[in-house]
């Protein structure tokens, strides 16, 4: 169990100025992973490097302190003295490492709780390791389970509910008024970065007619080109407002440009058709009283941020349930991991007993055959009887070994090895079946035989 580990750095432990020093480009990942598994006593490795975290997931070879070596390796790979990043790097081993991976996949460790990107990034990281040939049985199982846990968390909790950034909230609010944004027209007033982002979001949601206007025609043209919109002269503002469904305003004007008087005229000309104004300018572009007019919905930057804060608070509440799911799943995974430790011993034990049983059965059958004719049916019945007895005898010790706590299991395995002269082979692990079906190959026949037993 203790051979699975995580070493990394994230937004929780270090600012971007430090994180960027340890970051890996996508094309560097494969070579780094190969270096990890060839130079260090590490059997399996996956490396994830995003803007918020750099983490190495690995499985150490027995008897090595892999976390210590991995910390050193990561620092040296980036040309940093290990001492410089010692305080910001964290590590987890065994069950804690599993919990950490599950939490990361479920976006419970993300800067924006419940965000959707991390799962894709983790899948990409796993894909790269798979291609590089460094993801073995344990990490494969761990990450695939992590993806399953993430899916559970997203469907069973409200962790991903509600927009978590200002631009998405703007789109969300417009959708509350208009529903489907397909065919809606958007007017971008001013050329701020935020309005570009919000306009892009609106386009992604189906708004297909985007017009940009700015006091400087050149800036309007430039922005229009950038977001595939149409630039219109500033003088046409009133007419443009009559046509628009959603207005995103972010000019640098000192005085409000979207005044109540202007909107009284505009709304009359629109026949009071609803209009949503997303005013992300500071100072504000829209007079607060514009919101009092029928059919006008004005949201300023504070409103949008309040929604974001409320949604994040809801997500935080949902995270409590999500943590319980992670805890439960991690427990199940630990159980599987634990059973993996004794698999070689169980296999060796069963093989030894099978060998003895087969040899003795063969001897008996040969002796019988020398004395009288034994029908094939009888020979088969004798062989089956011996197998049945052996399986029955082995069932109890096998179960006791599997279900024991890690330390106890190791002790019992050692005793068994000594008593029966077993030499367990570590290769057994790779041929094990999936989580939840972790039975030794002979157990299938064991259970079948048990059913057949009188």
């Amino acid at each position, binding site marked *: 169990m203790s051979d699975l580990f995580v070493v990394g750095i994230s937004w929780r432990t270090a600012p971007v100025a430090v994180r960027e020093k340890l970051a890996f480009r996508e094309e560097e990942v494969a070579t780094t992973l190969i270096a990890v598994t060839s130079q260090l006593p590490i059997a399996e490795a996956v490396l994830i490097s995003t803007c918020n975290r750099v983490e190495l997931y690995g499985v150490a070879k027995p008897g090595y302190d892999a976390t210590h070596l991995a910390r050193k390796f990561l620092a040296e790979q980036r040309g940093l003295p290990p001492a410089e990043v010692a305080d910001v790097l964290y590590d987890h081993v065994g069950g804690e490492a599993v919990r950490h991976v599950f939490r990361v996949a479920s976006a419970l460790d993300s800067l924006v709780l419940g965000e959707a990107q991390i799962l894709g990034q983790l899948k990409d990281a796993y894909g790269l390791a798979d291609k590089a040939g460094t993801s073995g049985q344990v990490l494969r199982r761990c990450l695939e389970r992590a993806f399953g846990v993430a899916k559970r968390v997203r469907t069973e909790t*409200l962790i991903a509910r509600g927009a978590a950034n200002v631009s998405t909230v703007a789109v969300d*609010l417009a*959708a*509350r*008024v*208009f*529903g489907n944004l397909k065919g809606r027209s958007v007017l971008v007033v001013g050329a701020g970065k935020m309005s570009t982002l919000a306009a892009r979001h609106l386009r992604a949601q189906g708004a297909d007619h985007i017009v940009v206007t700015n006091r400087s025609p050149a800036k309007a043209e430039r922005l229009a080109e950038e977001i595939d919109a149409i630039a219109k002269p500033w003088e046409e503002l009133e007419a443009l407002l009559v046509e628009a469904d959603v207005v995103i305003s972010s000019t640098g004007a000192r005085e409000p440009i979207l005044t109540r008087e202007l909107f009284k005229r505009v709304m009359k000309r629109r*026949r*009071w*058709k*609803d209009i949503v104004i997303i005013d992300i300018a500071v100072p504000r572009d829209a007079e607060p009283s514009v*919101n009092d007019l*029928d*059919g006008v*919905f004005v*949201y300023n930057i504070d*409103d949008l941020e*309040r*929604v974001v804060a*409320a949604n994040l608070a809801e997500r935080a509440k949902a995270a409590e349930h999500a943590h319980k799911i992670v805890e439960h799943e991690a427990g199940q995974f630990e159980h599987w991991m634990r059973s993996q430790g004794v698999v070689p011993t169980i296999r060796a034990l069963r093989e030894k007993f099978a060998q003895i049983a087969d040899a003795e059965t063969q001897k008996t059958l040969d002796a019988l055959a020398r004395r009288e004719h034994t029908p094939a049916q009888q020979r088969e019945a004798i062989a089956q009887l011996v197998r049945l007895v052996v399986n029955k005898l082995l069932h109890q010790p096998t179960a006791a070994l599997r279900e024991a706590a890690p330390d106890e299991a190791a002790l019992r395995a050692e005793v068994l090895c000594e008593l029966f002269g077993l030499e367990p082979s570590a290769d057994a692990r790779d041929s094990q079946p999936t989580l939840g079906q972790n039975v030794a190959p002979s157990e299938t026949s064991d259970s079948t035989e048990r059913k057949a037993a009188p």
Partner: protein
Amino acid sequence: MNVVATDRLLSVAPSPAFWVAIVAYTIASALLLVVLGGHARFRPWAIAFVAIAFVAHGTDIGWRGTQHVHPAQSVREAIGFLAFILTGGYLLASTRYRLTLGGVVVMPVSLVLLVAARLSPEGEATDLSALGRIHISLATVGVGVFALASALSAIYMVEERALKKKKFDTLAFKDKGAPLAALDKLSHRLIWFGFPIFTVALVLGAVWVSKLGESLDRLEYALAGVTWIAYAILLVARQVYGWRGKRAARLTLVGFAAALAVLAIYLVRRMVA
């Protein structure tokens, strides 16, 4: 004891379907409340119980038909039929839009109307003329459609207020129900549909009353007139002056309030009689 009392109150004992409908309405109302509280996974169950209530309610009406009780035989029966139309309309609308808030209002209303219709004392003559039956049928359908339009307008008002006043922590905001534009459009369409039916019902009603030799000078007739005028103004204002949104929703509710007052007067008068 109770059985005897109930039987005395009912001219025709309710069918088993009636009790199924009552239970289904209650469960649907409770489930919709749970959904509104943020447990979206119960939505399919809630809608399933609305459907069960609708079918059971329809079965009960059909069963009464076999007992020679016409759904428009009296105001009492008509109220039961009105609840049936309400539920059907809600069921239809909720296949397209998320109308949890609407359901939380409509389902208990249907339940109360059905119970009132079946368990209120019978106090009127049942031998209606064909004209009377057609009048009551059309008026019921018309008011049922207006009730649905009004429910949508009421939701519009609540949602609009939440969006306008930026009450981001209210249920109306969190529920993420149907968008304002859809509510407004649907309410408008329903009034377009209900208005001609209600107009014919009103004319037939006037003819019927005249034939019976009664006076038209009664409060309920004046209130029915108010409903008609409110919706006539609404349709014209929408078409000519581009009225929509909150103003239209307000007038829709005024018209429906008058229609409700008519029903209440009828019911109280019959009960007293």
